[in-house]
């Protein structure tokens, strides 16, 4: 629909079309219901043009299109499950959808059923949240930490009050924001915000997601490209949660669960205790096939295993994809030779480690013989300090 140079929107009340005057500007040409409405208003994007047209035609088409696109994004295996969690279409009607046909047809069927029940944007937003909660979406999550004013005690924090307060403050500050909430099982609330301008309805495709656990000072935010409303967002968060200051932590990842594990210390850290199971594990012996074979470096290997286990623990590490070290230190080189020896200015480096599963990769470096054990504390402190962006300065 948006690929052509002319945009047609059909709805219950008539048609309108807009011309793609140039690559960036659309001009609303005519409306069959109200020819007098022909005005050439310029829009920045096809989406905004569509939104304006929909304002002329009727809200339904936008909602229908949004639901259709959301269903198209969901993998086929999860569609049934997500629709059941959504609980908007009754079970009897859900059974009539044939999930084996191609996705286009499945989404059309769902849209038809939603139209019969007159779905509004509110329900469609909930469907979007459920999709994000269930499927692994490739979005970068940033962690923010809020601090209370000194001397304040831990408060009860009623989640309903938090939601009301947040919505009120944000809607007072900005016009045309669409806020949706959904509780998740682990005492967290997912907040979805679609941003609009005073003249434009909220853009449902450019949304910010926030996850907040009650009585914790951490918020996980996945930003969309619209960054100018961040101060208002923070103000709403702090007022609703009764906090005094908010700060971005140097911790970012694609995997929300890993971020939660690091920040809430839910990953299995190795603590030195008299744990009964660990005593038994140490008695397991290496199988020796031929008694005449002696492993030359057995002691060294055992030392490496022990040091690795003490640093990382026995269990799987939280999953992050990169660690970045910005070195603001001077490059140290042999003063006699070396091209960089005479430089007055410091030589700045940025070192970035990336991997599908960075911490597990670091854990396997010493046992594989690639690095010495123990590893540098800059690498091993990532989960303890809850940081993966470091700035190293001169001491």
């Amino acid at each position, binding site marked *: 629909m948006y690929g052509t140079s002319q945009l047609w929107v059909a709805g219950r009340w008539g048609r309108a079309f807009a011309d793609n005057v140039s690559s960036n500007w659309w001009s609303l040409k005519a409306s069959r219901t109200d020819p007098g409405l022909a005005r050439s208003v310029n829009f920045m994007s096809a989406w905004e043009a569509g939104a304006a047209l929909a304002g002329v035609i009727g809200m339904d088409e936008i909602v229908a299109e949004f639901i259709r696109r959301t269903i198209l994004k969901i993998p086929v295996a999860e569609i049934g499950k997500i629709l059941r969690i959504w609980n908007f279409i009754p079970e009897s009607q859900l059974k009539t959808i044939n999930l084996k046909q191609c996705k286009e047809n499945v989404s059309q069927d769902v849209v038809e059923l939603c139209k019969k029940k007159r779905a509004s944007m509110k329900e469609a937003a909930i469907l979007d949240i459920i999709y994000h909660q269930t499927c692994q979406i490739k979005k970068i999550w940033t962690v923010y930490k809020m601090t209370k004013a000194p001397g304040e005690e831990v408060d009860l924090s009623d989640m309903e009050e938090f939601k009301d307060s947040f919505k009120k403050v944000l809607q007072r500050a900005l016009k045309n924001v669409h806020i949706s909430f959904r509780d998740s099982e682990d005492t967290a609330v997912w907040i979805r915000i679609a941003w609009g301008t005073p003249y434009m309805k909220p853009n449902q495709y450019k949304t910010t997601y926030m996850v907040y656990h009650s009585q914790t000072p951490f918020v996980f935010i996945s930003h969309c490209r619209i960054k100018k409303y961040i101060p208002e967002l923070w103000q709403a968060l702090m007022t609703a949660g009764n906090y005094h200051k908010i700060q971005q932590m140097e911790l970012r990842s694609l995997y929300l669960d890993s971020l939660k594990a690091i920040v809430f*210390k839910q990953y299995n850290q190795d603590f*030195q205790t008299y744990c009964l199971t660990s005593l038994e594990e140490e008695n397991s012996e290496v199988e020796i096939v031929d008694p005449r074979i002696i492993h*030359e470096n057995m002691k060294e290997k055992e030392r490496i295993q022990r040091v690795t286990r003490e640093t990382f623990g026995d269990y799987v590490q939280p999953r992050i994809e990169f660690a970045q070290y910005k070195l603001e230190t001077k490059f140290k080189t042999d003063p006699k030779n070396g091209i960089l020896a005479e430089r007055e200015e410091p030589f700045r480096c940025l070192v970035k480690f990336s991997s599908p599963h960075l911490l597990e990769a670091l854990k396997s470096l010493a046992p594989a013989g690639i690095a010495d054990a123990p590893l540098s504390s800059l690498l091993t402190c990532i989960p303890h300090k809850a940081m993966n962006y470091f700035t190293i300065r001169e001491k």
Partner: protein
Amino acid sequence: MASSQKHVFSLTGVLYQLERLEAHDQRSARPQDGHQGPQDSETDLEAKILKLRKLRDELRTKVKLHEAGARIPIANLEPYEPLKNSEENLKMKLEKAKAFFQAFHLTGLSGKLTTKGVCICFNTAFEGNILDSYYVDLIIKKPLQIHRHSVPVFIPLEQIAAKYLETNFQHFVYSLSEHLNGYSGRKYQADQLQCGFSAFLARPLQRNSLCTLLSFTYTMDPSGESFPFCARLVYQDLTTTLPTDVTITYQGTGATPASWENQRAVHETLFYKNALHKVFESFLRVRENFDCVSSVP
């Protein structure tokens, strides 16, 4: 040959031994000044061999005597005492140690010295059920500081540490233990209600992270005909497992019958005095009795 050859192999391995032997051989292959002829060195070696053989025989007799000596006391032993060799001894010691550690685990508080300090383990429990364990790793130096911990972020660890860690260490440990046990107990009750008695709940249980605010709606009648009770339990004290405020209201419109009011008062008292899942167990018993009674013709 250079005597300062770098050791490529590990200091205890077989290859190192071979290396040493090779070096020794090379050293002895060098020409020596003012030496005796090869025949003299032969006699030297023969003498050496005889000396070593004598030493070997002496050691062998010593070993035999020692072994024989070890067997003598058997005759002096009590008839029922079993012969304990070192391996069995070790096993018994291991079993004893394991039993001690299990006992420590059950007391709820245990610690282990680490290289820099001590690691304290808090094992929480509620009404005889052993729940999660939390660890605090301390570094012993002035001032005492917490190196790492696995305490959840909503427990006010920093506040407790600021108050007691420097001044009264025992109080710090005790206070933290109370907070953790309180949290574990409340969480256990909420989980039990959610999983075990979901038939009673009209709406899923809502709680906050510390489980200090629980709100749920329940009915006594499974068919849903009776008026629902909307309960809200507040635990002001973070170290307790019983609520400090209980409010039961009716969320719908219309007047509630007097029987409902009576039940409400009774339920409120029950929630104040008993653990959450125990209250619902009593509801279950009431309902079962009622069913029994109604099924009797």
